[in-house]
């Protein structure tokens, strides 16, 4: 078997060195009643296969999916399809990155550590914050951790989640805090960005969580909200699921956010059926010791040369155990690496330019779609995703588009099945990957379906 280097001769010699007869003897601490001697009898599973057989089997499964590689795709709702530069995918596959463990031994991990330090800086820069950690699992768990952190910082127990927040972020936050003494209130979906949060602030609030661009696309200025929250002694947590928007839109930090969390997938990997992504987490320096997750910090070695280490680990579970700021251990290192490589490839010019390109294409597409009979663009402001109102249930329209080989958008009803007023709302995303021809094809198909 190709992954196993030991030969029968090796095993014999090694058993002799150990002083036992058989490998089974080494398993003698397993309860005899439960010990398996013959896997063929115990498990109804196939035996080992060659690469070629596996490629065929998995390619067959892949072939049962309609991929955006062949179908025009306008899907967003938290996962975005941007171009992945070829050099990025090459670099993250280099064995020294791919097959390394968490950089606990800094002398042999300076590569990962320097990249994380650069990552933390980039994340802080684009969010407009002072510090960022070395990543969380994903945006939703980062949001949940932010809520928990806000409770620690403020020593309060109430979390208010705006209706602009991605429902998965909201649900994950609720679940995460479900068995703690904190409570989470999630507001109704805020399609138009008209929700009144100022009126809901009070002295018990640990934080209010909002999103930019909102789940339905709207852009809002949260400066006033931040000021008001701070007056009440609460923190403002700003989430985003499309960090590319930060290349064009005023950053949460500039608006006064205390914690910024984001799903970084859009700049790191293809949508990949939703995972793995990478959670971004940034805050103000004064809160750094309340942050969850790993942090990479600068230091010097015994020769006085600049280097990097994981630091402030007294916040973490492996040191602090039940008093840790989070139970997170493994995070999303490789996807964070992909994120930082992409940001480095883009640079200031590329990041802002790509954001501008996305917005311009989305504006043009919104105009074109708004002209389809029966269709109304609900989002007054947006970045690269906007909400449409259709004259039919969006889920049906999406199925009809899929039958025509177009992945036309995400029906709001997929997330809010109990809100009948959202049944005809469709979220449409347009990125640099959507050519004019693709937009025209969507318009044509939609016109046909709605006729």
């Amino acid at each position: 078997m190709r992954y196993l280097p030991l030969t029968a001769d090796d095993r014999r010699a090694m058993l002799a060195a150990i002083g036992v007869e058989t490998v089974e003897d080494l398993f003698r601490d397993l309860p005899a009643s439960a010990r398996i001697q013959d896997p063929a009898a115990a498990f109804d599973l196939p035996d080992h296969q060659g690469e070629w057989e596996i490629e065929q089997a998995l390619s067959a499964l892949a072939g049962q999916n309609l991929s955006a590689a062949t179908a025009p795709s306008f899907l967003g709702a938290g996962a975005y399809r941007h171009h992945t530069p070829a050099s990025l995918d090459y670099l993250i596959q280099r064995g020294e990155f791919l097959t390394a463990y968490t950089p606990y031994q800094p002398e042999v991990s300076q590569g990962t550590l320097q990249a994380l330090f650069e990552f933390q800086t980039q994340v802080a820069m684009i969010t407009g914050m002072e510090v960022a950690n070395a990543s969380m699992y994903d945006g939703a768990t980062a949001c949940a951790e932010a809520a928990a952190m806000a409770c620690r910082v403020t020593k309060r127990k109430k979390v208010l989640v705006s209706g602009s927040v991605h429902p998965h972020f909201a649900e994950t936050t609720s679940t995460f805090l479900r068995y703690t003494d904190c409570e989470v209130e999630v507001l109704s979906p805020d399609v138009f960005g008209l929700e009144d949060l100022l009126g809901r602030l009070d002295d018990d609030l640990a934080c209010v969580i909002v999103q930019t661009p909102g789940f339905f696309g709207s852009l809002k200025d949260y400066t006033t909200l931040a000021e008001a929250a701070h007056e009440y002694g609460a923190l403002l947590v700003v989430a985003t699921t499309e960090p590319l928007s930060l290349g064009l839109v005023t950053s949460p930090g500039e608006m006064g956010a205390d914690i910024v969390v984001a799903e970084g997938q859009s700049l790191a990997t293809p949508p990949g059926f939703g995972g793995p992504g990478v959670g971004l987490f940034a805050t103000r320096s004064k809160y750094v010791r309340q942050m969850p997750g790993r942090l990479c910090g600068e230091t010097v070695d015994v020769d006085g040369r600049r280097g990097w280490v994981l630091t402030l680990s007294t916040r973490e579970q492996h040191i602090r155990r039940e008093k840790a700021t989070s139970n997170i251990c493994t995070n999303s290192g490789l996807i964070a690496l992909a994120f930082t490589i992409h940001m480095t490839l883009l640079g200031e010019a590329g990041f802002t330019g790509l954001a501008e390109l996305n917005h311009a294409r989305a504006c043009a597409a919104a105009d074109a779609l708004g002209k389809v009979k029966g269709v109304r663009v609900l989002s007054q402001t947006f970045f690269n995703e906007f909400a449409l109102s259709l004259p039919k249930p969006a889920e049906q329209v999406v199925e009809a588009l899929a039958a025509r080989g177009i992945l036309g958008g995400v029906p709001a009803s997929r997330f809010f099945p109990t809100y009948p007023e959202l049944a005809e709302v469709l979220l449409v995303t347009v990125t640099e990957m959507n050519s004019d021809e693709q937009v025209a094809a969507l318009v044509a198909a939609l016109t046909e379906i709605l006729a």
Partner: protein
Amino acid sequence: VEEKLIFEQDQPGRTAVDLPAVEPYLDRLGGLRRRGAIGLPGLSEPQVVRHYTRLSQKNYGIDTGFYPLGSCTMKHNPRLNEKMARLPGLADIHPFQPESTVQGALKLMHQLAHWLKTLTGMPAVALSPAAGAHGELCGVMAIRAALEARGETRTKVLCPESAHGTNPATAALVGFEVESIPATADGRVDMAALKARLGPDVAAFMVTNPNTCGLFERDIIEISQAVHDAGAYVYMDGANYNAIVGRVRVADLGVDAMHINLHKTFSTPHGGGGPGSGPTVLSAALAPYAPVPYVVEQADGSFHLVEQVLEATASGQQPFGRMKGYHGQFGVFVRALSYMMAMGRDGLFQASGDAVLNANYLLARLSAALSPSFDGPVMHEALFDDRFLKDTGVTTLDFAKAMIDEGFHPMTMYFPLVVHGALLMEPTETESRESLDAFIEAVLGLAERAKAGDAEAFQQAPRLTPRRRLDETAAARRPVLRWTPSVE
């Protein structure tokens, strides 16, 4: 060669991507257009490729050499898995496509679940946890949900002293108080102490098995029985599942929940710290509380993803909620399934056998010169403490750092905490005997040098790395967590 930070390589306007020009248009930003520069550095593509190539060369990975990090199962990461995860039909699909257009993806998740349930004998598995600690959270939340459903309030979770730090941290997150159970002289749970502590306030016993000393908890069935008799649940930390996969079904041990690190046992790469994936298998008692989303096979053979708690409830489940965005670490699922198919039933059985054989070979060959903490046979890893370094002036840390100059990644140091100056070595099944022998020679050589009074050399180690020992205290005292432009 020094490698500057990207910020120190900046030239304004330079970029490694070329974009089409944007024609003038009317923006819809509502006046929220960003003002001023962000400060991101501009590099060209050749510079970026060279930067990360050079950074990679400052790293050590499994591909580079032997990586005997105890409790981390640093086994070979097959490239086939990377290739499969990049098939456009698996990578370039969106979590919110219509179900009819992702039947292959859902089937893949269903197949992975089938492998995990079959191997563990457990009736259910939650695929969505993103890593081991997240899987623990899943299991402990399911326990809390089950207790609530039973109308019981139990406040304590018991852990052995040797537990991973994530265990108490997780229990605390779910609102439990944690208490430690002492170990016996042979490195296992003290059954009597456990039984004495069990009572109506105990929600669960969390046990790593094989434990962090590399030993199998021989009494696990009796333990489970006692825990169940007390009305509590058994959470098994599956970080060390690699030792027993194919050798025992954890269902047969009385376990109620166990997370499985796909990035350990099932060979998906650690990637310098993730992404992982921690599917959690659940007993019949806990299965109803599994979080959304999950895949169900329908009567017509098609697959359906249950995403909403409400829908699950309607079908009789009682999910405790949702643990993360979207559908779980799908890309990791692909890699793990690819590995399972490659190994197969026979290969997985052989793998745990070879992993245990390799660990016992290390233990046997090193026991004369080092001080093993417990008698063997061990399972997947061999634990030594620092008695063999007594009076040499060499610490466990010095010894581990000296391994680096011999061309090896250090073993795990100072964990588990139950022995003094621990050195924990896990070879995994993907190391050859030649590789183990080279490691053994190096360890024996160092042990001899340490005993010969060469402490000075150990304290200077490592000498051959891009950086020598780094000042961690200074890093924590005055944290510098990002680059900042120098003010000129």
